[in-house]
């Protein structure tokens, strides 16, 4: 595990909304299964005193932290309020913030991430599915049934594509240490570089699958930054230039971030790049043969 474990107490912002309520249920079902603490408090301004699946709801993050030992949070609030939630949590002293919310204006994210950095806390996302360390902790919306415990870390800019890859790995008998969805927006808190740094210090993680997309060059920066063995897959090779493919982050940027040149640069660094998700398990096996 790299961002939390069984002992981590989680706070959920936007606890009384449809999404928040649904996923508090799922996160705590997972916590129960692995013997973890899970979600211990919720926050929705104006709804203090309520309960969601037996979890007490508070008006502010600081109030929740007075009553509970909390070090991580998951944010489900609407886009217009999400940056404020990030800053409230950073200010209250939460160490790891997972922002699930999509469609946050990028200038809001930029300010919130800069502020969180000043407060010394790390932000995962926004526009991400969160993270899951099998057998330890689930923070976010990943479908736990697909995961299995093991030694491979996964970092991804995508949501469902991550599940696809995790499903492939699990079916092939390759378990995961921690799977982190870092989000698909142009500005995200934790990048490949940041997560790889954590994996490098995690004795459980022996290799990493890096799932990228068209846009930017964060994948290459990540690959360059680490000594861990890596397998990569980049989505968007068929993306036409200048077409937006759902994620703002997937904008094809003047040739630099397009999938083909990204793949070429990764291969040049010696990183094996799968041409489709179903090839990943075999490539991971080959890595283990070469490195372990």
């Amino acid at each position, binding site marked *: 595990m790299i961002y939390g474990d069984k002992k981590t107490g989680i706070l959920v912002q936007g606890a009384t909304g449809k999404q928040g309520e649904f996923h508090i249920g799922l996160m705590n079902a997972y916590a129960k299964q692995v013997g973890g603490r899970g979600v211990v408090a919720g926050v929705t301004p104006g709804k203090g005193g309520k309960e969601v699946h037996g979890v007490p709801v508070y008006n502010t993050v600081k109030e929740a932290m007075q009553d509970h030992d909390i070090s991580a949070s998951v944010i489900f609030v609407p886009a217009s309020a999400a940056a404020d939630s990030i800053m409230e949590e950073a200010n209250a002293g939460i160490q790891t913030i997972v922002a699930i919310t999509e469609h946050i*204006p990028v*200038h809001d994210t930029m300010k919130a991430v800069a502020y969180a950095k000043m407060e010394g806390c790390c932000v995962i996302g926004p526009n991400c599915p969160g993270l899951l360390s099998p057998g330890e902790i689930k923070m976010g919306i990943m479908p736990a049934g697909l995961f299995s415990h093991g030694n491979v870390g996964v970092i991804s800019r*995508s949501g469902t594509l991550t*599940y696809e890859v995790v499903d492939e790995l699990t079916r092939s008998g390759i378990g995961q240490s921690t799977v982190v969805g870092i989000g698909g927006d142009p*500005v995200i808190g934790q990048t490949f570089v940041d997560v790889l740094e954590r994996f490098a210090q995690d004795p459980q993680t022996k290799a990493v699958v890096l*799932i990228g997309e068209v846009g*930017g*060059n964060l994948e290459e920066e990540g690959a360059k930054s680490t000594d861990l063995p890596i397998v990569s897959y980049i989505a968007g090779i068929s993306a036409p230039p200048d077409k937006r493919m759902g994620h*703002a982050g997937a904008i094809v940027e003047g040739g630099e971030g397009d999938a083909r040149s990204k793949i070429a640069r990764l291969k040049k660094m010696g990183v094996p790049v799968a041409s*489709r998700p179903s090839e990943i398990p075999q490539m991971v096996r080959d890595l283990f043969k070469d490195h372990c």
Partner: protein
Amino acid sequence: MKLREYEAKNVLKEAGIPVPAGFLIRSAEELAPHLGVLGDAFVLKAQVDVGGRGKAGGILMAGKADGTKLAKDLFGRQIKGLPVKEILAEQRLDILHEYYLSLTIDRSSKQPLILFTEAGGVDIEITAKEHPEAIRKAIANPLMRDIPPFMLRELIGTAPKEIGSIINKLYRIFLEKDALLAEINPLVTTPQGVYAADAKLIVDDNALGRQGFTVNRDLTEREREAEKHGFSYVELNGAIGVIGNGAGLTMSTLDLIEFYGGKAANFLDVGGGAESERVMHAVRLVGSVPSVKVIVVNLLGGITKCDEVAKGIIAAEIPQKVIVRLAGTNEAEGRAMLAEKGYEMLDTMDLVVKKAVEVAA
């Protein structure tokens, strides 16, 4: 969403960045009343959203005598396939030097990136490649409303001091207008002072509402229809319609089509937790594209309920063949419903895509 040149220039002007005197006209006849201010040397600029507009014949030099005739001519033209509906008639500047200035978001540092070079103009991209050292860069702190003076001094070097204040004004525009890009190229010096001769502003699609825009003009009609349902949708030109959940998985499905030698007709991401009615709209929308021969549905996830998806596919009642890969909650129920109606279902994305490529061929 990209603003038109005249809109971008209005934003600059309001913020105190000098722009040439100009008028927007929608027909050649509208030019006459402005000839007095425009003088004897002005420029007619087609307001079309294409790059390389000048080289494609979208910018004409005009004078008092031939202005109306040239405007009529330009309104009759197509610039890279786009009709000219609006022209910006602008005073011609007596240019001494061209600079380049832009603000974007730097993904690595997660902060605004300022680029400035004394070698601006139409060949900026060649400059960037051949003389990257000529482009000065600075990273701004998004929590500060102004760029510190030292940073401005470092950026402008020996360029006129006025440009420093223009950089700061553009930075404020960038922050206040939720811009993904704010660019002035060229930024020019003239005997009368410094002017933004051309300007480009791209507003974050996620901030259009608070910036006062009701529609995203960059979208086609079908894309707008998709947006109403909360789908992200992109039109391509093949025969295989693609519906997935999540941008990454849907994009990966497109890539797989190419891998197996097929061509995708479009890309539709239904998003998370799709209910039957949304799935129905998605299938109908993709089915409404004339070139679509077969549709691949690739849905995977914890919160997507497969019985809802199956209901939606069946309710859409489209003539094209629909090939389905479903995994998630209530998978067995969903599969049973589709099987009863004779839909083809396969277990992996490789298999559905392979099959669709065969059907489309």
